[in-house]
């Protein structure tokens, strides 16, 4: 038995509730000599295997639900809450402010992007305000107003962290949000106690505001670059974290096509009292290479008035369902779990979020019709995750768990097993796995417990060429997004359907077997997160989310369509370069002694995080966490192979900045939802392989490639990629220095660059990679 069911006997539950205390008391009593090991043997609490493998006292099964499920807590208390007794919260939509260009004679502020005066926000600018602070360290207007020390902006100073291509992607929409302690009376279910301010840290609208749940939703459209100004409103003392989470943050817009300075993933966390301006450029990939004159109407964004704003770039690279989350190295897992994330829907001409407008470009996927774009009445973000709670009902995380943290409470949009009212019509769901370590496999059960067929339309925010009919999704690892369309029209008012998790997981390193729908519906005593996690109630009317006050009725026609063709395939071509990245395997992997013998037995060999081979050359040992893959030139097509050499673990590997086109999974089968489909997170599968085509362009700088099991990521399954694909002559066309944030400002260190294997000598290869012979200098305003 792994998880303790809530139907377990009262005595058994009490025992488990007290397990942690008991262990501590026994250990303490032992050390004080108040009891002896002989006593423990007599009581049956100690075996030769260690302390107490029975009665829930095993110190090695730190989990409460017992052996091998390392949550580190007793079963989370439910306070009598039943599933499907609270409505599912829709994500917290943020409102943009218009930004205007400052036309000033003062060169210091000319070209800044001003927020509306009423907000009292200083304008956003190309160079960080840290640059001003460095030049004028005693000027109070550039200092952290809360602590009185360090710069007001966390973005590092100078050209290396200037917004790339500022004028070309001048921001038009501005958001102001804070990461703060959770607002009073925030609960994961009405029966649960309110979370203490420092149990949950989440985003809220405005400057130095409190955090709110559910997480934020931002609607971005192509052609309207965004500044997201994020204030850190967390406690100044980092010890005030209720057991986990670091009060330093950086917001990573997962895989958006942004400059490295706005990627939020390159050692750029900032401190309480400061803000960071992320410029979310909405750059459509390949804009320097394909459709450069912006003549293709499919490469466009909605203009807000039934028209289109054309943008340069390849319409096949359009992105849709995205998310943003904390990326503070060594703290990502605990920070994201604590609430530091939200979702971003990107809207385009084809994927407009309007199901009625018929302009020859709009796909008219289920969404709604009340708004010009970005309708969410029938286009619903679903964030699935798991959590654990202390006996007192506060959010709990085991910071000492390195295998991967699993919770025993299923959450949808950060609410415990809610219900959602739906009309009998088509809905689009944008499903994100935001767990730390849990893999989901989702299906929908009809009122009779039979699987409902649905259409799979996008993977990781990328439309598939043709919708794929499915009755169960593929496994979904942390950070993966699956978009599906479900048609409820054949169900009658009053019917109840359920979103069901069919994947059992009792080990943070990888999931167990997939269960049948019937098994999953029956519940699983090993894993409480198996089974129904969300209930759909078919009703006759629902209030509009898009236009409050309007009621939507089941009798209205459903104008939405799911076209047979959603986009076009990007072809696989002969690559300029191939790379093989092997995760979790040391050197040549040979642990035998001389003569191929194991004397006296084969030694254990520690596993280094990865090795890299380029163009089929000998592997180079990449056994440190500060390595680099160099990408020399914008537009070079490469084929990468990821190999999970680490044996029994599964890793969802995330490549920042660009999607890859999934080519194959070695000799394994590849599901239709991946074959030739663009992705940014790949589950490697235990012992598995995946190959994809990739190219980079438009921006340069330092990005990363890592395991998205955020616990593994913190463990250093992370490598740095240096893209030399920035604007020629800018620092982003060379190796960029590494920023190191401190409360008093950022200092820079020189990155250590490890060589890569090549078919030629390293020196010849690296010389060819770097055209500029000397340390480069900037060329002023790009």
């Amino acid at each position, binding site marked *: 038995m792994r998880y303790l069911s809530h139907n377990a006997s009262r005595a058994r539950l009490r025992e488990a509730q007290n397990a942690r205390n008991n262990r501590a008391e026994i250990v303490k009593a032992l050390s004080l000599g108040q009891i002896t090991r002989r006593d423990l043997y007599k009581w049956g609490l100690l075996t030769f295997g260690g302390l107490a493998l029975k009665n829930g006292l095993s110190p090695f099964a730190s989990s409460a639900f017992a052996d091998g499920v390392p949550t580190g807590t007793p079963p989370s208390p439910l306070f009598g809450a039943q599933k499907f007794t609270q409505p599912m919260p829709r994500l917290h939509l943020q409102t943009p402010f218009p930004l205007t260009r400052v036309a000033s004679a003062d060169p210091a502020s000319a070209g800044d992007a001003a927020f509306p005066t009423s907000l009292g926000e200083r304008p956003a600018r190309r160079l960080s305000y840290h640059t001003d602070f*460095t030049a004028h360290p005693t000027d109070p207007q550039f200092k952290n107003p809360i602590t009185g020390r360090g710069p007001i902006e966390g973005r590092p100073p100078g050209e290396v962290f200037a917004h790339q291509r500022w004028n070309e992607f001048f921001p038009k929409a501005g958001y102001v949000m804070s990461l703060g302690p959770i607002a009073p009376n925030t609960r994961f279910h009405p029966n649960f106690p309110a979370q203490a301010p420092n149990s949950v840290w989440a985003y809220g609208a405005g400057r130095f505001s409190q955090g709110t749940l559910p997480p934020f939703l931002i609607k971005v459209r192509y052609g309207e670059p965004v500044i997201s100004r994020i204030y850190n409103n967390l406690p100044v003392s980092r010890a005030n974290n209720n057991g986990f989470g670091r009060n330093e943050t950086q917001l990573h817009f997962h895989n958006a096509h942004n400059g490295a300075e706005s990627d939020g993933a390159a050692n750029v966390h900032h401190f309480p009292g400061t803000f960071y301006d992320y410029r979310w450029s909405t750059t459509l990939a390949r804009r320097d290479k394909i459709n450069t004159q912006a003549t293709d109407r499919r490469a466009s964004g909605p203009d807000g008035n039934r028209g289109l704003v054309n943008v340069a770039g390849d319409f096949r690279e359009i992105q849709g369902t995205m998310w943003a989350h904390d990326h503070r190295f060594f703290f990502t897992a605990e920070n994201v779990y604590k609430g530091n994330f939200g979702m971003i829907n990107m809207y385009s001409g084809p994927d407009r979020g309007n199901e009625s407008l018929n302009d020859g470009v709009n796909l008219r996927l289920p969404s709604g019709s009340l708004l010009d774009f970005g309708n969410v009445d029938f286009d619903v973000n679903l964030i699935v995750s798991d959590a654990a709670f202390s006996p007192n009902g506060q959010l709990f995380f085991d910071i000492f768990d390195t295998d991967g943290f699993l919770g025993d409470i299923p959450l949808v949009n950060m609410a415990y097993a809610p219900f959602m009212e739906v009309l009998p019509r088509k809905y689009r769901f944008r499903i994100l796995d935001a767990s730390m370590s849990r893999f989901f496999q989702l299906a929908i059960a009809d009122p009779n417990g039979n699987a409902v067929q649905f259409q799979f339309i996008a993977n990781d925010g990328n439309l598939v060429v043709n919708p794929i009919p499915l009755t169960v999704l593929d496994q979904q690892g942390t950070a993966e997004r699956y978009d599906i369309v479900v048609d409820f029209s054949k169900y009658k008012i009053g019917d109840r359907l359920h979103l069901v998790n069919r994947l059992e997981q009792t080990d943070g390193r990888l999931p167990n077997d997939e269960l049948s729908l019937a098994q999953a519906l029956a519940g699983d005593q090993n894993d409480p997160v198996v089974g129904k996690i969300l209930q759909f109630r078919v009703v006759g009317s629902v209030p509009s989310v898009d236009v409050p006050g309007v009621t939507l009725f089941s009798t209205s026609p459903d104008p939405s369509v799911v076209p047979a063709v959603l986009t076009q395939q990007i072809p696989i071509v002969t690559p300029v370069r191939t790379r093989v990245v092997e995760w979790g395997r040391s050197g040549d992997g040979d642990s035998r002694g001389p003569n191929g013998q194991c004397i006296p037995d084969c030694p254990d060999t520690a596993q280094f995080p990865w090795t890299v081979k380029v163009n089929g050359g000998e592997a180079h040992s990449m056994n440190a966490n500060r390595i680099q893959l160099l990408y020399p030139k914008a537009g070079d097509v490469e084929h990468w192979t990821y190999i999970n050499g680490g044996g029994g673990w599964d890793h969802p590997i995330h490549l920042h900045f660009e999607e890859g086109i999934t080519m194959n999974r070695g000799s394994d089968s590849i599901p239709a939802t991946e074959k030739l489909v663009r992705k940014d997170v790949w589950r490697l599968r235990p012992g598995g392989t995946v190959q994809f085509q990739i190219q980079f362009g438009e921006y340069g700088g330092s990005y990363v490639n890592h395991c998205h099991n955020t616990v593994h990521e913190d463990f250093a399954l992370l490598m740095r990629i240096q893209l030399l694909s920035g604007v020629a002559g800018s620092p982003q066309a060379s190796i960029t220095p590494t920023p190191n944030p401190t409360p008093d400002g950022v200092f820079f260190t020189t990155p250590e660059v490890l060589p890569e294997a090549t078919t030629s000598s390293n020196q010849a290869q690296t010389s060819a990679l770097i055209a500029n012979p000397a340390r480069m200098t900037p060329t002023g305003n790009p």
Partner: protein
Amino acid sequence: MRRGLMAGLAALAAATVAAPAAPDAQSNRWGADYFPNLPVVTQDGKTLNFYDDVIKGKIVVVSFIYTNCPDICPLTTARISQVEDKLEGIVGRDIFLISMTVDPERDTPARLKEFSQAFGAGPGWLFLTGAPQDIRLINTRLGDRSRTLSEHRNEIILGNDATGEWQRNSVFGDLDRLLIDIRSMDPAWRDEVRQPKPDEASNTGYPLDLQPGRTLFKKICAPCHTIGVGDRVGPDLRGVTERRDRAWLASFIRRPDMARARRDPIALELVAKFPGVHMPALGIAENDATDLIAYLQAQTASLNDAQTPAMPDHQHHHH
């Protein structure tokens, strides 16, 4: 296991009985109630209570080792010895280094003593062993939940028991960055203002370092070896490309464990001279070995050039 248990009981009997710690603030989940106060034995054979004597009220840097480790752990310890050097004067006073064995059956205090001496560990650095089940419990609580020795945690843990802050870190990143993270465990140190100076690096990029082997040397060799500054954990490598046959050197860099196993005479000579710790097999690929040899050769040559009287240009650098 039986022997370990008896040792544990003996240690328990010898343990000093201390008053239980006062309950920590409610927000501190990782204090006296979390860390076991079990007996542990230092490399000097002294028995301590883990929480009361090793953790309580202190700032600690914890790593996990085993002295029979054939690969990465000696490098972890060597990197920590570099940290110890850089924190000279405050280790043992403000900051305490702790290396927990994950192999208590084999790592006796005497073995740990020999190992610690190989790294020149000072008095502020404890190498701890004890009864296997006690050590496993402590390590589990510290986050080493490995099932086999080779899976053990290569990260390090930074903790400040006074504030209840615990965090992961790594010795394989930039050591200067790590030093800041370690010192930042002390709130008083954090409260001191250290404003970075303006740095032209914030405006410029770097070309790629074209010297093969330099970065690798810095990362995986320099923790134990110098070039021309004398023996450290292992021998000074100045002139090693002249002393040794090139093929032998390439082979030894990649698989020193195999050289020792086949009783290669030079390998045995090195074992005799540096008994505390043996060079690990670090999974170095052939290309990397070639780069490292080139780097050793180049560094030796430049030292030799600098000291050749016939080259007065260089001499003044050494005056």
